[in-house]
């Protein structure tokens, strides 16, 4: 019995120290082409400066802070921290806490409610190699959601094509506005 327990404890210790390397972490997924299409548009603009200015303006419209720009590569990275509070989630967790309290215990379910989220976005704007006056624009986004105790609750890439479409719509409008102001 003792031997079995010792073995178990040793195994648990080893597992605790084990390194977890994800397999196929850098293999292209089958959906790559589809995702790339949702994240990319070819836009017409009078100049590279014009489209970069319009892109930065859109980021500000969407309340992002620009973190870095590397113009020769057309890379713009921006981020924002917003509220991730969800009323429906909180109602559910409130009732879970209530049930626990009725049973005489404290589950602290409310602590795990979503609180803030940090969204990071990279926009790459590059002149088309095929046609002048056209710019290939690609966006990738991901987010971290924290709970009330500042623990990470969700780590994910944002994949919803509708969100990307909304940003490109805003970018088109921004290009129009910038052009009409000149």
């Amino acid at each position, binding site marked *: 019995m*003792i*031997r079995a*327990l*010792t073995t178990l*404890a*040793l195994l648990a*210790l080893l597992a*605790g*120290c084990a*390194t*977890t*390397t*994800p*397999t*196929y*972490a*850098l*293999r*292209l997924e089958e959906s*790559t082409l589809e*995702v*790339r299409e949702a*994240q990319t548009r070819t836009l017409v603009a009078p100049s590279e400066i014009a489209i970069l200015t319009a892109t930065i303006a859109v980021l500000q419209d969407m309340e992002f802070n620009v973190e*870095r720009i*590397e113009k*020769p*590569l057309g*890379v713009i*990275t921006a981020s924002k921290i917003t509220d991730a509070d969800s009323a429906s989630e909180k109602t559910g967790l409130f009732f879970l806490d209530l049930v626990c309290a009725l049973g005489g215990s404290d589950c602290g379910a409310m602590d795990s409610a979503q609180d803030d989220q940090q969204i*990071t*976005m*990279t926009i*790459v704007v*590059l002149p*088309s*190699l*095929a046609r002048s006056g056209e710019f*290939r624009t*690609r966006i*990738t*986004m*991901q*987010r*971290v959601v924290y709970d009330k105790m500042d623990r990470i609750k969700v*780590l*994910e*890439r944002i994949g919803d094509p509708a969100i990307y479409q909304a940003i490109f719509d805003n970018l088109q409008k921004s290009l129009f506005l910038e052009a009409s102001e000149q």
Partner: protein
Amino acid sequence: MNRQTRTTALVAMLLITGCATTPPDVVGAGTQLETRQAQTREFDTLDKAMTMRSVVATLQDLGFTIDQADADLGTITATRLDTYTMRMTVTVVAKTGDRIAVRAFARVGENAITDPATYQDFFIALDKAMFLTQNQVD
């Protein structure tokens, strides 16, 4: 001390020790040459700027956002949030004889990725992006 007490003490000590504290791991674990070989590929088709464009496109294909990029120094660092957080640094260096060397390094949390197959997958993805850039498909 009987046998049972001794065993219990041993287990308790192991539990307390846990993952033993180690000196700061500054120089890394792998041998320099092997690590370089696994992480590096040379290309003789594109210039440095086009190669960097392709690296950025590959990272985006793989779901990364770019933390920082420097065209002069040929360095790009990117992060991907998944069930784990992966950070990558890719360097693009012009070699003699119109060759470009691309070196990739990835880490998940405290673990450096050492599996050559993972880097192989990255370079397969980069090859595809290079082809698209070179043929001016985009």
